[in-house]
């Protein structure tokens, strides 16, 4: 159950291999990778910068991971979130979950990214032709997170 907040890129294949290595109880591995797009809300984006709240970020991510572990029978769980300046096609975030059961891996992975998006203290500012623009929070992200509330 690892959480990392880092400026550097990550190697998805190596991270998944590391999380699963030598554990024959794992039947399913689900992962999600968030990438920087070159367009947002119809406007071209040449780069974005992710700011975060050191200390609180790790704390919130650990809380979310603990909640996933409480809800699903997980063998392993990894969250990596980058900060700093990122260009289109670069990797922002990685979530990987492993379990004996396919549905537990798939559901917990979706849960983690949905909750992370509304609870982890990161903020994006985008470079556009009109200058820097702070990304506004989306109602759809709140809705996605809310659907896990009742469980």
């Amino acid at each position, binding site marked *: 159950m690892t959480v990392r907040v880092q400026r550097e890129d990550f190697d998805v294949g190596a991270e998944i291999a590391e999380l699963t290595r030598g554990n024959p109880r794992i039947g399913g591995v689900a992962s999600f990778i*968030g990438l920087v797009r070159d367009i947002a809300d119809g406007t071209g984006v040449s780069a974005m910068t*992710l*700011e*975060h*709240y050191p*200390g*609180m970020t790790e*704390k*919130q991510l650990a809380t979310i991971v603990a909640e996933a572990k409480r809800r699903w029978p997980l063998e392993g769980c990894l969250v990596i*979130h980058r900060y700093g300046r990122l260009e289109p096609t670069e990797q*922002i*975030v990685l979530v990987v979950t492993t379990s004996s059961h396919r549905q537990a891996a798939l559901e917990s992975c979706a849960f983690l*990214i949905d909750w*992370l*998006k*509304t*609870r*982890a*203290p*990161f*903020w*994006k*500012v985008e470079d556009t032709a009109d200058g820097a623009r*702070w*990304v*506004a*929070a989306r109602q759809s*992200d709140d809705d996605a997170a809310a659907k896990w509330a009742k469980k």
Partner: protein
Amino acid sequence: MKLLYFAWLRQKVGLPEETVTPPAGTATVGALIDWLKTRGPGYQTAFADLDIVRIAVNQEYTDRDAAITAGDEIAFFPPVTGG
């Protein structure tokens, strides 16, 4: 107490963090915000619409009713947009 500002709140206030000693009797986050707004136009703009200001005390989410004491770390920031 230590105050932290992030994203556009940081830009409006004009600094990322500061250590302040609010007047005696400033017992909640709400009272702290009221006092901060008396300190200049940057603060007034930053805290103009409290619906889009999130609050954390000692790195846990809370709200304006939360009690605060001298040693606390209090952070103000917009709704988060990571992931």
